[in-house]
């Protein structure tokens, strides 16, 4: 597996430099503005998968390098597993950079204190896994153009939601209720006491989501012709 991760890192080194620069600026900004660790957690959960998982696949598509990768002495399932592990390694590394930066440069060390708590760390993993479970297979199936179209569709849906919410008032509007439910779910996860059961459920959910992401992505990748 190490040779696969090494291959991913070498082939995506340009992206890694951009990623490293972005993460550094991101943490400096978070600490400088003293932005709530909760907001940074949610934000990171969406940005990191886009930067790691999606961009690696986008580069493979851009250069049509799947011909090369799939011709190497390996099988497609291992390629996808390697990509998922590499993505997670980078996302965790980005978090560790934030924790270290907070420890060294943040006066109240709020990011450090928050993320080294098991519950918050697991919630970060859960949010990231939730986003990844949609994004990772989506990019494999629809490619970079699919992601761009998807983002435009999301934008349009957002505008429609806003318009509908204003037109019909906030109470009883389905979309508004749905958004509220998501926010409440996030608050519930972050505010729930760290009981053994709760932590176990979080770990189990993260594991299930990632296994599903892996298996579904492998299924989609195996069906592709290059």
């Amino acid at each position, binding site marked *: 597996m190490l040779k696969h991760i090494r291959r991913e890192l070498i082939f995506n080194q340009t992206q890694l430099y951009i990623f490293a620069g972005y993460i550094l600026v991101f943490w400096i900004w978070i600490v400088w503005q003293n932005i709530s660790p909760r907001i940074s957690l949610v934000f990171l959960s969406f940005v990191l998968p886009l930067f790691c998982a999606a961009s690696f696949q986008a580069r493979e598509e851009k*250069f049509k390098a799947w011909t090369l990768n799939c011709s*190497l*002495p390996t099988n497609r399932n291992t390629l996808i597993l390697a990509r998922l592990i590499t993505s997670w390694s980078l996302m965790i590394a980005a978090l560790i950079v934030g924790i270290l930066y907070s420890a060294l440069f943040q006066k109240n060390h709020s990011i450090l204190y928050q993320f080294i708590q098991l519950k918050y760390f697991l919630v970060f993993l859960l949010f990231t896994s939730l986003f990844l479970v949609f994004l990772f297979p989506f990019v494999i199936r629809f490619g970079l153009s699919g992601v761009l179209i998807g983002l435009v569709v999301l934008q349009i849906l957002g505008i429609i939601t806003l318009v509908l919410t204003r037109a019909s008032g906030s109470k009883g509007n389905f979309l508004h209720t749905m958004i509220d439910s998501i926010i409440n779910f996030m608050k519930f996860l972050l505010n729930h006491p760290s009981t053994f059961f709760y932590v176990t459920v979080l770990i189990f959910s993260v594991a299930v989501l990632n296994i599903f992401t892996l298996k579904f992505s492998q299924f989609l990748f195996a069906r592709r012709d290059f």
Partner: protein
Amino acid sequence: MEHAVQIENLRKEFKGFTLKDVSFNIPKGYVMGLIGPNGAGKTTLIKLIMNLIRKNSGQIRVFGKDHIQHESEIKSRIGFVYDIPHFYEDIKLKSTASAIAPFYPKWDQDLFLKLMNEFSLPLDKKFKKLSHGMKMKFSLCLALSHDADLILMDEPTSGLDPVFRQELLEKMSQIMLDEEKTMLFSTHITSDLERIADYITLIHNGEIIFSSPLDNILQNWGIVKSEKDLLDKTEIPGLVGYEKTNYGIEILTSDIKTAQTLISSDSISEKATLEDIMYFIKKGETHA
């Protein structure tokens, strides 16, 4: 005879094109030339062997093993050169090689560096900065640096200048001095194959027209030229195709010796080249 590649009833369906139940073998230690016009199915066949595309039915065995069940093991013994080399364009050549090398147990770094030097390829250059010819050379360097037992090359000489084409063919000849190595060389530049191929497989419209030793083809196939329309009066043995011209008729036969004994004395016959054979078959005026 031991076979490096065995293909049986291989079928792949695309919209508008079908590779139709193709069967042929590549004997171990020989060069098989895969010829056919553009769009005949040569690339599809090579991609199927490499499992880059999924077959609809049939079987592919490489080194006697199923190509999907033993995918990693088989691919570690294959060197591949595709018609368009697709590498990460913004990565330096040495980095690309360094990422690929650990996948091959028999990777020879000294040989790789020697080949890079022979082909005048700069290690520190990014792939996107290379010309098409240099890209092909780099692809070839990688394919030859891990002592591959089977070398698959899809149109490796297309777009190359004559000097490098000559160098490439010489390099291929040197490699094939090792009788353990096998090569599948797809091209539509048939003159390249006449120099190095031992066997020729002709594919047209997704069907194998023939798969035979090159010597047999060059000895037995020929063109009969006549001012008269021979088809009206004589049954031409081994008739494959014909073309009516302003001056009469030209007939391609796979049995030129017998044909010569039957045709009229005012006809002339000559040996067919691979290009002639491809031309007549592509013309499509084949005899039923």
